[in-house]
């Protein structure tokens, strides 16, 4: 007796090559045309314009976005956390302590924090893999400075740092940079603004299950 797997594969082969088991039309031999990829592969605009566009589009999703100089990063983080009233902050195990104000209780995750601990924190600080200007998207590949997926999901406030050099123009520029992480078995998360829904009368409303506030520091 054949397995379901074999039966399905057999039905596919019959459908593609030997005519129709149930339909009337007999399929011809497959004639695969090449996939033309003549859509835009790269944004040729000046770097400054691409970074401006990234900031503009992330802002449109109702995220808070600020531009900071490299040497002011720690001050900007302290300011953001203070404005939000964050006292207990989740970070990944590899995030440099020098970025963070001494007054804050750090919940450093080495994959061991419980969901309850994450849920009762006041927020999370992470880096990211890259940013996409065209769509205003942050991409996490859960590598350096990002930690496992749960830490940037359960807390209600996500502060994310992206360096200007990490920002690309178009989605086709981003995908090749993510492939290594995928081949290493890591998950990928695309984040475009705070969590939202369009389920009520098809209008976007911010703030459902994921972090309800997303703040982004763009390091120039």
């Amino acid at each position, binding site marked *: 007796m054949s397995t379901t797997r074999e039966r399905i594969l057999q039905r596919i082969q019959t459908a593609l090559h030997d005519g129709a088991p149930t339909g*009337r039309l007999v399929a011809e031999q497959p004639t695969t045309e090449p996939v033309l990829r003549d859509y835009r592969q790269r944004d040729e605009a000046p770097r400054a314009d691409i970074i401006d566009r990234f900031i503009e589009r992330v802002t449109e999703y109702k995220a808070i976005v600020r531009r900071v100089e490299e040497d002011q990063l720690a001050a900007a983080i302290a300011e953001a956390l203070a404005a939000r009233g964050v006292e207990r902050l989740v970070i990944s195990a590899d995030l440099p302590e020098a970025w963070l104000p001494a007054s804050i209780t750090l919940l450093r995750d080495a994959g061991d924090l419980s969901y309850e601990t994450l849920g009762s924190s006041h927020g999370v600080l992470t880096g990211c893999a890259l940013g*996409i200007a065209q769509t205003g998207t942050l991409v996490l590949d859960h590598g350096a400075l990002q930690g496992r997926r749960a830490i940037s999901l359960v807390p209600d406030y996500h502060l994310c740092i992206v360096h200007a050099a990490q920002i690309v123009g178009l989605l086709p520029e981003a995908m090749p940079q993510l492939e290594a992480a995928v081949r290493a078995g890591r998950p990928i998360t695309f984040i475009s603004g705070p969590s939202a829904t369009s389920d009520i009368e098809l209008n976007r409303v911010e703030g*459902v299950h994921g972090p309800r506030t997303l703040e982004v520091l763009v390091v120039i």
Partner: protein
Amino acid sequence: MSDHKKKPTPTSVLIELEPKFEQNAPAALANTQLRRNMGKATQTIRAKRANVVSELSDWEELREAGRAIKAFTLEHLDEQLIQLEAAVQKAGGHVHWAQDAAEANRIITGLVQAHEAREVIKIKSLTTDEIKLNAALADAGITAVETDLAELIIQLAGEHSSHILVPAIHKNRAEIREIFMRTLGVRELSDQPKELAAVARTHLRRKFLSTKVAISGANFAVAETGTVCIVESEGNGRMCLTLPQVLISVMGIEKLIPTFRDFEVFLQLLPRSSTGERMNPYTSLWTGVTPGDGPQEFHLVLLDNGRTDVLADQIGRQTLNCIRCSACLNICPVYERTGGHAYGSVYPGPIGAILTPQLVGVEHAGSLPYASSLCGACYEVCPVKINIPEVLIHLRGEVVRQKQDEGGIRAALDPENVAFKTLAKVFSSRTAYERAQSLGKVGQWPLQHEGYIKSLPGLLGGWTATRDMPTIPEQTFREWWEERTKA
């Protein structure tokens, strides 16, 4: 009855057995609240989509690439599935194959029972609606909790979905407020969307943090790497994909894309076509199991359930390109007016009108290919270029042929059959055609009014029930031509 071979009665896909769109539509059209809600929602989403699509100068190139990638996938579906299976297994996942809804439900129920779970959390999934998974789980004493906001509204209201992306599209904010107050025991609640969303957040939080098993569909799966993708907005998807110990994902065998790079096409096409956004809030990609991150047990269930029949039809096959964006529903003048329930299928709207009859057989859903004016708007907006009008016409042919095949007295007396047989005779001879014209000119006299016939008698009345018919003119073209050459 003839001995025409019937497929077994479909227990999946259809919400009503043998839906009759033409019988369901008038009630939907008479529901003014429904028409207001549908009109408002579809107009909003159409404007948003048009706006973000016009922003991309290379939209047509992206559509063409999307179509070509899907065509390639389907032409190599067997190899692609074998490749996917190997990649998922290599990454620590398990792969199951299910020929029909019953087999898929058996596999999933068994997996949930093996973990002794009495409750599972679910990400909105059309494929699980198609196989009626929630009912199958309930039969086994397992509660399936829907976590998508619209899906939750529907579940609490005890209704069926009416839109593939926004199942509660037929409900306005006041109606949603009423459902939440009635079913969740919320005492004070306004109809502000923000407050309504907050209710869902509170209601589901504990379940996300404590439930052991999650079930999802899949938007895409990459044959090359075994990577599976879920596109969502609320974060309920991320919760289900990240926090439980076990993840079970069900996907139709056509949801494949060959390479990781292909995401660069579909992640541009899908959000702009579905919610009219440059990008949806969250997209998750995962490959098998990642040690220390997310569920440590992953099962992928590959579902046929009629798809190989669709694949076998050279014209119908393009239906399997569908990425379930719902742009064709939102643009369709028929769907906008009737809403989704009139289709009686898990898949309503233009895509449902071609997918449903192919999955279950035209003999069970023969009215759906007629639920269209063939205006072609659906084809224009389809991000993977499914020529829906072409498939509709092809299926109408199938419906007629299937009726004729039934044979016997029923087919011989079918008024449509008789009418078209007569027409074919008249149209095939010049003298018969001209004689019919002269007869018509005389016969139409009592029926006409200012150049139009508003109502034909008897069985012919069906034609004029929804349209006026122009009268045969005093002088036909042929008569005019003859006169002109004589002069």
